[in-house]
């Protein structure tokens, strides 16, 4: 069982994941990059929101201007050691100006949630034993940060300068 944590609370997942060869159901859908490339015009012509699920080898920059058509970009962690999605999220937020939902899906650890939050993730598909309380704790273990990222958090350098 999985559940969704979004903006710090449990949330309903409104997107229907659609296999590459399945028919499109009504309502918001979540498709792969391959499916999107295949059915781009159909998907964008529908009067519902579209989410895309990118594998860790798929650079979101290749979406080009289409990036802003998506309300959700799910970034996959095929195994928790694969850290490419940290860069994809950062690029989506700070370079491509993506303001929709960036969701972490796949295999990641409690101990990575804060890093994910920092680079721009704002939703997490988590296993049943992962609670909102754990989520909040993960974000507060470390108070300050040394480097700017996509979370807009003041860095230690800025805090020093403001003393």
């Amino acid at each position, binding site marked *: 069982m999985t559940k969704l944590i979004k903006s710090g609370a449990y949330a309903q997942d409104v997107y229907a994941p659609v296999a590459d060869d399945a028919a499109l159901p009504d309502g918001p859908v979540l498709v792969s990059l391959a499916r999107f490339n295949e059915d781009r015009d159909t998907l964008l012509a529908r009067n519902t929101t579209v989410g895309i699920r990118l594998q*860790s*080898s798929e*650079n979101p920059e290749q979406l080009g201007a289409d990036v802003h058509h998506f309300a959700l970009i799910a970034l996959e962690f095929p195994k*928790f*050691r*694969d*850290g*490419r999605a*940290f*860069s*994809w999220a*950062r690029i989506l937020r*700070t*370079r491509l100006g993506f303001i929709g939902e960036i969701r972490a899906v796949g295999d990641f*650890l409690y*101990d*990575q949630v*804060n*890093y*994910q939050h*920092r*680079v721009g993730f704002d939703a997490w598909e988590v296993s049943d034993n992962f609670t909102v309380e754990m989520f909040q704790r993960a974000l507060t*273990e*470390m*108070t*300050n*940060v*040394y*480097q*700017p*990222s996509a979370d807009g958090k003041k860095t*230690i*350098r800025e*805090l*020093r*300068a403001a003393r």
Partner: protein
Amino acid sequence: MLNPLAKQVDPNMYRYDEFDAQFVGERVEQFAGQVARRLSGELTEDQFKPLRLMNGLYLQLHAYMLRVAVPYGTLSSKQMRKLAHIARTYDKDFGHFTTRTNLQFNWIKLVDVPAILRELADVEMHCIQTSGNCVRNVTADQFAGATDEEIEDPRPLAEIIRQWSSLHPEFAFLARKFKIAVGACEKDRAALQYHDMAVQIVKNTQGRIGYKVMAGGGMGRTPYIAHVMSEFVKRDDILAYLEAVLRVYNQDSRRDNIHKQRIKILINAIGPEEMRKRIEREFNEIKRAGTMQLPQDELDRITAYFTSPKFETGLSDEMPQAGQDFANWVKTNVSKHRAPGYAIATITLKTPGQVPGDATSAQMDVIADLMDQFSVGEVRVTHEQNLVLPHARKKDLPAIFAKLKELDFASPNAGLITDIIACPGLDYCDLANARSIPIAQAIARKFENLDRQHQIGELKIKISGCINACGHHHAGHIGILGVDKKGVEFYQLVLGGSGAEDASIGEIMGPGFGEHDIADAVERVVNVYIAQRKDGERFLDTYRRLGMAPFKDAAYGKVAA
């Protein structure tokens, strides 16, 4: 203490402010939580592994090993005493200085780790990112701030890099480890070109100081010398540039084969030109966002911590006379300091017969006293597993030498054939195929005669117990690689490597030698050099002139050397 009047001296080095202290303190408690989850079984070993590695904790053959970061190799006497205390209290009374200028404790219990980390935090130390697939502890030239060869002290930049890379959210799960070194002169004592990324402080033709950035060097099973990525990065752009290199690496590196995931593999697969292009593009994007620029006031603030100590003036610049032993030591272990009357003294942890890089608690305590009394409270750890007193008055050198003799650390062999780098090898490491330490000891004993060592001159032997090359065998003038052949340890010879400014990768001679033959084979190789060298040639120069053949013939006994 040596001298009851000697007080602990606080050297001019980076000091934590309340933000650094809070950061390290919280990191300790975070890791203590991870340890507790492992001990309770909530985390599997597979899940715990990357977490513990990011905090320098390895599971070795016999016990946990904890690797303590010594940022850019700089230690205060207070920190040295704390390391001695930890060795005494939680380990078997010794520590091991590594080729990454860190200190390892080899016999640690998991339950003790949180307490050790709290003790370290008390003296502004930590184990953050001393292992794992992240940016590792930053190293620097051990003569920083003391040599007149440098453009400026490289440690402020190294400290800035340390802070920027600490728990960097984007680069905590890289494809592989990422090692950075910083140098500031043409002479390279930090093996810059063998690093994933290296920054050399340079001056451009307009006399402006900036940074030359190299990337893609590395040892391991596929050794490469780094390529220059940028000849000159402006001061305030440096973090943006480093972030660009890391991002390209994180995005584009292979992830399908652990042996092909270092940045050196990426750069050599796509070519340095393409890599430069990708970095440049990323660099421009990062610059456009503007958040990575390094303000001058921050550079100034960090630099201020490393202000030179007040050197006494009016000291005699003459080297004191204190006998032949002392003169021998001065010849190899004492280097020119930028202030008249001062010298840089290298303490080789390589007395023939000892384990390279090991120091007991008692030895660490005495070295801490020496630091306070004779080197403004400071010592440096070198990648050659030695220690350096950076600011010693020449007139104090005989007293320092006498004390080192009592410690058995007075070998006049810095840079000589017995100043051997060796990894822990099969005695400790579960990756190793063969033992390194006994081989280092056997070679050191064979060449124990000092006159002979001095007659041979500069000759760097580096020994690794497996192809991961932690003992830097590729960069040895004579490298030795331990291999396992059907349960028996063999040792291959690798000749002609260098980790200095004239970096080169050593060439494998051929089939390995047995445990009892390798030291003799080294001797036959050295004898070829002695017989063939021309005026002033080091072993490396003679090898480069003659090539492998005469050395190989002699090593395998085809001709009498």
